[in-house]
Structure formats: structure tokens, C-alpha cells
């Protein structure tokens, strides 16, 4: 297990000493970023399986299909607009299927080990950051969607102030006043910077008569 642990300290997955075949544990890096493997969590694991086995192959296949039906102009062409996308599409399909096969085999191995009551070594990711609260992540994403949707309609200032107050108060509910003040000041500052200094017209929306 020691080899694994050391590999986990390296976010890009290649421990400097793993390559020369020496057991990394002897002189391996271990330091303050505690080299523990962070479990993926049920939501992320489910998402990962769905994406790798289902979404990416379908997406790649769809791209290849769409590439092969690109409308061709009536004249003779030295280079078809289809050829480059088709090459990419084929390579994408191959890679996506490869990833799917690896994932399916990993799933089967895990299932087989579970029936034999063994423990399988967890996968080591390059990226060890994990979302611990998917609810918070989805709330953030939903807030962004609403913000973007109302950006032009309500205008920059109104939508931004609302977005900032709501999202920051969701994450620190007891600091409503502080959140409100910072949100208003920040929105005004960004508006002035873009409109007056950078000459970028931001949508005025509801406040179009006032500003």
C-alpha cells in the first residue's frame, strides 16, 4: 500500500521516483499535504460511471455522425470541410470507448471483490479535490443559471445584487447585513469600472431610467 500512498501526493499522478522502479516508499515524498486517498463519494461515483460509460461515447458518436453529414458546397473542393471533423470524431469514439471499457472493467472487478468479501484498492485520481456537498454545488449552479437568465432582463445591477446577496447568505446565513453591504458596493464598483473606465455598456434593465 505504501507505493499507492506516495503516488497520491502528486496531483498529476507521476511520483518523481515511481518511474525508475525504486519502491517509492523508501525515499518517497511525504509531507504536510497528508497523502491519503480521498474517497469519491456516492454522487460523484455515480456521475463518473454514467459519464464515462454512457455520456462520452454517445457524445463522441453523435459528433462523428454530425460531422459526416456536414452540408457540402456545390463546387469542387481540395479539402472537404468534413475530413478534419471526421478524423477527430473517429479518434474521439476510440478514446471514449477505451475509457468506457476501463470503467466497466473496474466496476466488474469491484463487484467481484465485493462478493468475495475482499477489499479493492481505490482508484487514485490526479485530481484529489472532491465536492463534499453536492447540494451546495447544485444550488450554486442553479443560482448562476438564474443570474445569467435574468442578466439582460433585470439589468446588471439588480440581477447582480440579488445573485450576490442570495448566494452569499445561503453560505453564511448569519451575516445578512454584511453580505448585503458588500454585494451592493461590489456591484456598483464593477458597474462603474466597466461602464465608465472600460466603456463596456452593461444592460441597465429595470434601472434604465435611473442610470
Amino acid at each position: 500500500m505504501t507505493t499507492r500512498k506516495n503516488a497520491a501526493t502528486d496531483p498529476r499522478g507521476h511520483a518523481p521516483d515511481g518511474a525508475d522502479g525504486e519502491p517509492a516508499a523508501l525515499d518517497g515524498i511525504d509531507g504536510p499535504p497528508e497523502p491519503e486517498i480521498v474517497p469519491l463519494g456516492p454522487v460523484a461515483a455515480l456521475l463518473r460511471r454514467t459519464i464515462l460509460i454512457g455520456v462520452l461515447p454517445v457524445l463522441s458518436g453523435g459528433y462523428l455522425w454530425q460531422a459526416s453529414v456536414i452540408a457540402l458546397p456545390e463546387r469542387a473542393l481540395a479539402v472537404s470541410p468534413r475530413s478534419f471533423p471526421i478524423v477527430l470524431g473517429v479518434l474521439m469514439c476510440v478514446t471514449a470507448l477505451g475509457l468506457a471499457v476501463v470503467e466497466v472493467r473496474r466496476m466488474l472487478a469491484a463487484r467481484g471483490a465485493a462478493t468475495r468479501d475482499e477489499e479493492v484498492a481505490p482508484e487514485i485520481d490526479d485530481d484529489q479535490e472532491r465536492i463534499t456537498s453536492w447540494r451546495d454545488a447544485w444550488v450554486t449552479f442553479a443560482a448562476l443559471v438564474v443570474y445569467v437568465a435574468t442578466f439582460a432582463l433585470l439589468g446588471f445591477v439588480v440581477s447582480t445584487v440579488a445573485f450576490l446577496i442570495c448566494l452569499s447568505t445561503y453560505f453564511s446565513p448569519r451575516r445578512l447585513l454584511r453580505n448585503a453591504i458588500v454585494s451592493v458596493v461590489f456591484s456598483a464598483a464593477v458597474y462603474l469600472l466597466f461602464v465608465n473606465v472600460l466603456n463596456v455598456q452593461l444592460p441597465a434593465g429595470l434601472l434604465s431610467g435611473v442610470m
Partner: protein
Amino acid sequence: MDSISSLLAAFGTVLQPEYLLYALLGALIGTAVGVLPGLGPSVTMALLLPVVFALGDPTGAIIMFAGIFYGAMYGGSTTSILLSTPGESSSVVTVLDGYRMTKAGRGGAALLSAAVGSFVAGIFATIALSVVAEPIGRIALGLGPPEYVAFAVLALAATSLLGGRPLKAAFSVLFGLAVGTVGIHAVSGTQRFTYGSLALYNGIDFELVTIGMFAVVEVLFVLGTLKMAGHTRPVAAAGKLYMTMNEWRRSAGAWGRGSVLGFFVGVLPGAGATMSSYLSYGLERSISKTPQKFGRGEGMIEGLAGPEAANNAAAGGALVPLLTLGIPASAATAVMLGALQGLGVTTGPLLLRDNPEFVWAIIASLFVGNVMLVVLNVPLVGLWVQLLKVPTALLSPMILVISTVGVFSLSRNTTDLTIMVVFGLVGLALRVCDIPLAPAVLGLVLGPLIEEQWGRALVASRGDWDVFFSSPTATVTWALAAAIGFLPLIQKTLRRARERRSPVRGTTR
């Protein structure tokens, strides 16, 4: 010697108060971003594009970008040393010995060694860049479309296959290339994948993709872990900013080795600052008389001085292919390339011939940026650390606002906002699968260039595919790309063979 007079003339330009102000601004913003975990130099540059386009001055833009580029590295090392929280992946190794030194009360020495080392390396890389730029540029002028395609493919192959996850990184590159095919085909003028949407006619801008996949996704990750992570970070005392004679001596050697190593690794596509810092750490440990002390006890100053020098030198090295060939070797230089194109600069081999004063201004601004950062950062360390006290609950939503306004101001159209959100979701999906995102940005920027040059080569040869192997340069480059392609396979076979010999280790895989 032509180079030296050109460089001196460029200093005349760069030392104007206006440009010094841009350099200062870039250095400040870059350091701030480097200190805050999450956003890297590439996103910061993408977010600042509206500001840069509003300036409308390519020289000013690149001077600011140089400041951001180096500033992010300085900022990242500061938090690695004091808090054990690396802001950038290139400062992860700095934690190993840097944080131990801080715990042992030598944080000041670690900070000083990192800062001076970055400065030395930055200056070295800039000198090396100015020495090699002209000769490489002259060779580059002799290259045609077939060689260009080969070089770009080599850059992409190296990016995807030299990292830890070849298959995943390869998918990321291909995804970026595929996104790059949306819009009007440069050679035939046909529309592709636009589905009648006017906003897609000119293709999907890399800024939208970069901001969506990095800034939005990073905020989702930060806020998605906020409740577990807690709101405060313990800040260790830095101690006094001085090094003993012994520490100076030990650092100096490491700086020198790190600078040379970092520069050459940085020139290579796909390697970059992160890999150079790991290689430098490995080098320092393997030549040390006491390798067992690295990352243990009070830490070894070499293990921090070397990588810090190496990652800064690599940032300089990465500019070599960008300025001479117009081929970016990393996400950060890809954003720079996109910005230059957005400002109407013709990038590629002709840049140095047609716009030499511009290239020399960049090089001169790197010197200025380095001096500015060392002056700015060593005394202001305490101030930068205070930045971490800004509550995440407010800071992260603000980053989303800046992302949205940045995207909106680039095109003044709300479809682009939707595209940004969609790429936020795509980036999240890829990141959950542990698929690296940076190769996609590189693919997106290089894709249209590759396709255009490929088209030109085939038009010139009247459709004869032999044109891609018509010159020795092209053939050798293709061979290299193919060799890199087979590398993971070879490594796997070797590993299997080794495991068969030592069955005990086989169980850990």
C-alpha cells in the same frame, strides 16, 4: 549583437510610466490570484481579456500578462510555505519542505529563498529566451504548413500523453479540437455545427470555454466543499526574513540547477511549470548528501529553492515556442496567443520578422515584471496572506459575477453567457471523471490553426497527402509524435514485466 540593441530599445518602450503601471497592475493581480487557491494564471488572463481589449494596446496587454504569469507563481509559493495550501499546481512541491521550514521557525528564510530563486530563474529564462528567439525564429521562417501541422500535433500529443492519464488527457485534447471545429470552415467557407445560431458562426471563443471550465467549475468545487472545509485557515508566523550564509550557499546551487532545468522543460510542449518543479525536486534530492532529510523534520532549503526556480524558468521557457512558432505549450500561453490574435497581432513565425520591436518589448517587460515582483512581494508577504481572510461565501460568488461580466463584455450577447454556463457543466462532468481540463483549452486554440494549415498544405499540393512528409523536419516531427504516442504502451509493458519479476509489488497495483 543585433539582439542586444533591440533589447535596449525595447527597454526604452517598456520603462515608460504607462507600461510600468500595467506591469505593476499585472503583478498585483497575479499575486492576489496566486495567493487565493483555485484560479490559475490562465483563467485570470481570460477574465482580464475585456480590460485588455478595452486598452486596445497589444504591448500593454502582454506586459500585464507577463506580470500575471509570474505573479501567480510568487503568490502560490507564499501560501504553500506559510499555510501548506498551494494556490497553483506548480507550487505543490514547495509545500513539502517550505511548510516544514515554517513550522521549524524558518518560514522567513523559505520565503526569501523562494522569492530570490524565482527572481534569479526569471532573469535567467528571459536572457535565455532573448538568446534563442532570433535563431529559432530564423529557422521557423523556413517552415511551411506541413511542418506547422506536424509541430502542432506534436505539441498536442506531448500534452496529452506525457501526463499521468494518457487516455483521459487525449480525450480532453480531442474534445477541445472538436469544439474548435464549430463555426465557419476557414478553407471552404462552409458552416459546421452552427445549427442556425448566429452566435456560433464565428466559432466558440476560447475565453468562454476557459472561463466556463475553469472559473465556474472551480467555484462549484470551492463552494461544494465549503461546509466541510470550514471558514478559517490557521496562518503560521513567517518569522524573520533573512537567510544565513549557509542557507544562501545551499540555495544558490539549487537556483542555478532549477533555472537551467526549468527553462528546457518549459520549452517542451506539454511539460511546463508543474512537471519542471517535480523534476527539480527529484534532482535536488538525488544529488544531495542527505536525501533522507527532504520533506522531513525541519525541511531542506534546496527542496524549495530548486523547484521554485524551476517553475519560474519554465514559465519563461514556455514563451519560446509561443513567440517563435505561434504554438502555445500550456493553457496559460494558449490564452496569451488567443489574446494576441484578438488584438490583431499576426502570431506565428512571421511575428519576429514583422514585429520585432513587439517581441523585444515582451522580453524587456519580463525583466521589469521580475524586478517588480521581487520588490513588491518580499516586503508585502504579510499583506498578501491577509487576502485569505476574505470569506469564501462572498469571494466565490463575486468570481462568478466577474466571469459573467467578462464574458458579456467580450461580445455583448447573452448567448455567450449560456455557452459559458454549458461549459461550466461540461467542465464539471469532465472533472468528476478526473479528465484534465487544460488539454482541452490547448486543443481548442490549436485546432483551427492546425486545420487551416492542413488545408493550405493540401491545397498547395493539390490534394497529395505526401506533402506532410515532404521535408525532413516534418518527417522527424511526425516520428517524434508517434513515438510519444506509443510511450504509454511501452511503459505499461515494462511495468508488467517488472511486476512479474517481483510479485510482491504486483499486488499494490
